[in-house]
């Protein structure tokens, strides 16, 4: 079937086969490979996108259900000139190593700050607990976010 959706502010059309996930359509059909396929069962958050305002694992969303939806991926957060503050903070704090989890963390953290501009350390940890990072031990990622929320570094 054909679905029409808005991705990062652009109207897009995609052909969807059967039970295909939104993640697959984003990566393979719409050629937006920023969202990552690390576990494909909703455990690691590497495929996080914002779907109609909600943070979701795009690997768990059926693309067929996304007709008319508004989707924001990691590719939609920076503009031509400036990084999103979360992106800049992660680079600065050393929150990126292999970077495979990074798109998911960027999307989840940006979504958190949009709804709670001054989260406590515990709130940040809770909000990001659905994103797995195997490289950093999370320290630098948490320091990056605390640098944006006025927390201690």
């Amino acid at each position, binding site marked *: 079937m054909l679905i029409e959706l808005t991705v990062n502010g652009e109207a897009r059309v995609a052909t969807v086969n059967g039970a295909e996930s939104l993640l697959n359509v984003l990566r393979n059909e719409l050629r937006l490979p920023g969202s990552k396929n690390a576990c494909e069962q909703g455990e690691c958050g590497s495929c996080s996108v914002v779907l109609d305002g909600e943070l979701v694992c795009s690997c768990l969303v059926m693309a067929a259900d996304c007709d008319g939806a508004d989707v924001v991926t990691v590719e939609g957060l920076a503009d031509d000139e400036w990084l999103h503050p979360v992106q800049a903070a992660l680079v600065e704090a050393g929150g990126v190593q292999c*970077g495979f989890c990074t798109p998911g963390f960027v999307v989840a953290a940006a979504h958190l700050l949009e709804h709670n501009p001054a989260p406590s350390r515990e709130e940040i940890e809770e909000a990001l607990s659905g994103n797995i990072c*195997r490289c950093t031990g999370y320290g630098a990622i948490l320091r990056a976010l605390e640098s944006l929320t006025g927390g201690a570094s």
Partner: protein
Amino acid sequence: MTVPTRVKVRGGVGESVARPDGIPKVVGAFAYASDLWAEGMLWGATLRSPHARARITRLDTAPALALDGVWAVLTQDDVPGAPTFGQLQRDQPVLCDGEVRYWGEPIVVVAADDLDTARRAVAAIDIAYEPLDPQIDPEEADGRDDVFRRMRIRRGDAAATGEIVVEGYYETASQDQAPLGTEAGLAIPDGHGGVDLWATSQWVHVDHEQIHPCLGLDPGEVRCHPAGIGGAFGAREDISLHIHLCLLALRTGRPVKMVYDRAESFVGHVKRHAARMWYRHEADPGGNLVKVEARVVLDGGAYAHTSEAVLANAAYFAVGPYRCDNVVVDAVAARTNNPPCGAMRGFGAVQVCFAYEAQMDLLAARLGIDSLELRRRNVLAPGDPMPTTGQRIEGALPIREVIDALEEIPLPAEIAGNDPRLLPGGTGLTTPPDRVRRGVGYAVGFKNLAFSEGFDDYAEARIVLTPTGVEVHTAAIEVGQGLVTVCQQIARSVLGIEQVTLVADDTSEIGSAGSTSASRQTQMTGGAVHQAAVELRRRLLVQYDGDDLDDDGVWRRGEMVVSLADVCASGKVEQHVRFRHPETHPTDENGQGDPHAGFAVAAHRAVVDVDPDLGLVRVVRVDTAQDVGRILNPTAARGQVEGGILQGVGLAVLEGLVLDQGRILNASFTDYLLATTLDAPDVEMRFIEQPDHWGPFGAKGIGEPPTISSTPAVVAAIRDAIGCHLYRVPVLPQDIVGL
């Protein structure tokens, strides 16, 4: 005379320089192997064994080949060259040879128009098995002499005795590296019978050595290219989909891409060896070690991979960083029908550290002395002989300083109080705060740096001068650890030139950089870059009679003699280096000799809160002090230490493969537990900077020590909290409540 004011080069050694791939990674633009794409490419998929051991009684690929959109269905009969591969022993069939020897062993590979079709083709293959009893017990395999390697170490007097004796048995589970990026790659036929491969790797040259013979091609006909890697930790050190991709691309004449899903990744790469260890420590009443005896059995799984090198580490580091004149070690890596094992961060040093540090705590308790004091009485120092091999320790080895620095880090306040988020078990609200018990534990870990036992370990790098700076060419693999940044920093500091670009060469363009493993690339490829930069700078200064060099050109007494552009206009200027570390040697029949090029040590202190009724653990913090030689990039170093510690914490309380008759029962991120933000301890660290005898600017590799002693420190802290004996990792709730 006018002397222009020129600032010292920026972005050099010692600064927390941001990584050049940082921005591409945060905006989602960095191309990982799984993101590669080529016009007209096919997708590959693999039929894998559902048995740990079985004979194939029927195999018919025709139904798969008959499907629309399927272009190739290949079995072992379609491998044109050598039928087997392997890094140290070529014992693994490219595709099953008629008997499957582990659960998930590849049997058939297919290429089709898309992934769905490829998977349908795999399902359509007509195959039947006669299941055989899998050999799953490494001790039984040892008894049958079905082993990859034995290590025998005899030093001093095996009959020596001490008044105080402690004995223990210990186990560590097999750990999955669980890099977030799964195995992935793209192979493209070159149109002349050869092939180019971009795939997840830690060492493209050793992949290349194994790939081209299986394809029946000359070395020059196969090119392995570095590709974007989503983490490694040892999982990429051995071949996974590499040969399969090349076979499919050559057969179809089209680009072929393959990406393992997570379940396939669990069976598709080698893991950390499960270990069984028996220890006997004897000491005098003053706490000085008199004799250490150890027996170590590693389960190597079905094929050799790097088991023999992992075993060597387990044997050579079986005593830890302690003086002891009488040592007996017997170690074996056994062949079973369990998942094949190989490299993972710490590489054999992890397993034995869990055992010998538990033994040191037992000994301290028996003697009634502080556990750190016991360690201080026994620590090795430069010039001492290694307890196992007798090798005299060269270079820096500040073990005592590491322990002292760790102890000076303040302990945290008492148990957090009533916030359920800070209690064991979290917001389940099942733990009453007054039942929580706190424990503190210490451990010290020790490992070699770079390759050992006479292996010809080298790294090549080439620095090419450009009109605006330099290019550094290397085939060394950046897996996320920060090698690219560190090489830029080294080149800048030596040359005085700020504009440094790393160029990732393929196997046809430059010689090997060796593996991104064994904590070796900062020293090895970093060493090659350092040496090339020193020589290039010297040449330019001599040629133009200069006294300084920067991005503008060569200078003499404050005036520019020649610009980089003019230097380049007169011909290509480059410096190529093959860098080697100090020579190492194989040991003799008693394990005696000089097998190692260098060492590093770290110590960890874990603080845990335990719910003794439910067996739940919260790792509150893990502090550390580490011997680093010299820190080249503080932010990157901190990231290595924090990340390495969390993998060690994982092995302590979360991570372990669950096997049943060779099958992995927890091959998913739902069932194989990885630490999240809520599980991660706070970490405070101290770096002990004593420059080593080799390595750029005195730097040591820093990637592995954080993972080695963090595991035993956490377990020691749990023992301290609840006072019970814990002999295996991961420590599960049932171990704590005593079920």
